[in-house]
């Protein structure tokens, strides 16, 4: 018994010790970002780093929101990410439903393409897409980026959602259809409410892609006032230099907060969606 308790204690100590080390690594940059965004200049350029601001100030937020286009960047990102999410939801739900419920020719090939489709080198896709979108006059437009992001989210989301739909029993729609619903009606009234968690995961995934993406936005957006946040913050650092860390960290917090909120609400679904294809219980 005593040995059992001691062994248990060792396990606890090892687990906590490791978790403390690893969460310092993963969370410290966030802690640093957040506290520094409330620091005034003198607390930023110190030989001995200040962990907690002694005199917290909102000056950095005030500055980036009034003196820089950060607010504008924020709205650009919000617009692009929201439209991308809505588009991806509609397209992905339709495609995943067909993959999950119907037998048809090329089903397997389509599956292969969905899995492999987003593994190709980003730069290799960027160049021809840039050339094509230039021809279509879609470079430097929100629409151009929205199209690219929707497509970027599509393959993996469709596959992920198909995995989720597979776990929803087919009898659900069948019985609704026997009761006189059309297939579309059965999907809308019976199937979608049950499949909501999977769809939420797709929403999070698509939103995250559009919110975080950098390379395509950097290449495609020419006008400063159309920059999304990711390109905007990098541009700001480029012109202001790295001397204004307080301002940069305030901008960083603005970028992270929406994603973080979204993540806290939906992480359970995201995790189950992501692992659905990989782990079978």
């Amino acid at each position, binding site marked *: 018994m005593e040995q059992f308790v001691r062994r248990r204690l060792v396990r606890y100590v090892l687990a906590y010790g490791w978790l403390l080390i690893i969460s310092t690594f993963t969370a410290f*940059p966030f802690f640093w970002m957040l506290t520094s965004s409330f620091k005034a200049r003198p607390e930023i350029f110190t030989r001995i780093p200040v962990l907690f601001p002694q005199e917290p100030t909102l000056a950095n937020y005030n500055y980036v929101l009034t003196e820089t286009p950060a607010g504008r960047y924020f709205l650009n990102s919000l617009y692009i990410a929201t439209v991308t999410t809505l588009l991806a939801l509609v397209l992905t739900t339709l495609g995943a439903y067909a993959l999950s419920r119907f037998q*048809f020719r090329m089903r397997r090939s389509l599956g*292969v393409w969905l899995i492999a489709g987003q593994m190709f080198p980003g730069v290799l896709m960027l160049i021809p897409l840039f050339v*094509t979108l230039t021809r279509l006059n879609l470079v430097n437009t929100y629409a151009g980026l929205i199209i690219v992001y929707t497509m970027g989210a599509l393959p993996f989301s469709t596959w992920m959602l198909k995995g989720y739909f597979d776990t929803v029993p087919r009898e659900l729609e069948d019985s609704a259809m026997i009761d006189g619903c059309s*297939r579309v009606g059965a999907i809308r009234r019976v199937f979608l409410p049950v499949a909501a968690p999977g769809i939420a995961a797709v929403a999070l995934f698509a939103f995250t892609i559009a919110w*975080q993406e950098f390379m395509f936005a950097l290449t495609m957006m020419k006008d400063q006032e159309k920059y999304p*946040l990711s390109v905007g*913050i990098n541009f700001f650092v480029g012109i202001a230099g790295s001397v204004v*860390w307080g301002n940069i960290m305030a901008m960083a917090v603005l970028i992270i907060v929406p994603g973080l909120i979204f993540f806290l609400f939906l992480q359970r679904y995201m995790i189950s969606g992501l692992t659905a294809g990989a782990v079978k219980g």
Partner: protein
Amino acid sequence: MSTKTLSVPLPEGLERLSRRLSNRHITPYYYLLPTVIPLLLLTVYPLLRGIYLAFTQYNLYNKDTTLVGAFNFIELTTNDTLFWGALANNILWTVGIVAITYVLGLFTSIALNENIPLRGLFRGLALIPWVCPAVVAALTWRWIFDPHFGMLNYALMELGLIDRQIGWLGDKNTALAATMVVAIWKLLPFSVVMLLAGLQTVPEELYEAGAIDGAGVLGRFRYITVPLLNRVGKIAILLTTIWAFNHFDSVYVLTGGGPGDTTMLLSIMSYLNAFRFFKIGYASAVGVVMLILLLLPITLYTRQVLEDVE
């Protein structure tokens, strides 16, 4: 689908067409077309066109395309002083990141699989880099790595591990490792999530049975955990390999390939050729080389995922 409600009789040809369109075998395609057509247009077409461009010299301004055969590839492998270095960096970068991310992810997921208080909090903390865009990660880490005002140098000097300030990103010896740290930071949550999900499918009774049969902690790890994690582990490794190999954002922001090309990766090299030097064909050739190198992991990954489904 709504053809049945039409009351006016259709001419025979149309009638047959309408019957065929409402046929069960056609139905899937109504659902699929909105997904498949954009997918083909925006993944298949760019891929084929990208491969085609690699065999041309393409001028972005006068839109002049000249087929030059394998010229770009020959130039790349024989005349470009950057290519082999970038390739070596890319491989070192990818292998290092994948190995370290896997090991850290494994330990973290095992610790998180213990039934301990505050488990949810620690899981949240381990997953948090996920919500941080690579650009923001790069900028924050740049400050942490700063030789004079950075937290890292301060902490290491306080601990007595180094005796003078190191410019982590500016020093040719440390720059690649520093960029790897940022990439590992960003990829770790994925590894933890996958491996944790894998561990949670391992029934507790198996460990109890192992313990009764006299297997120690290490023995149980070796003979129960490792084999059962095999599949999830393979998927996690393949995906991180592909992502790390293709990575662009954080290195572009952290170093842009410098100092002295010590952090030059193939993706950065391709990007600079395309959008700084406007050598579109040449840049595509670099992309095609990346694609060829990735064919094996992409194939293995696709096969693994399909196998799991069937």
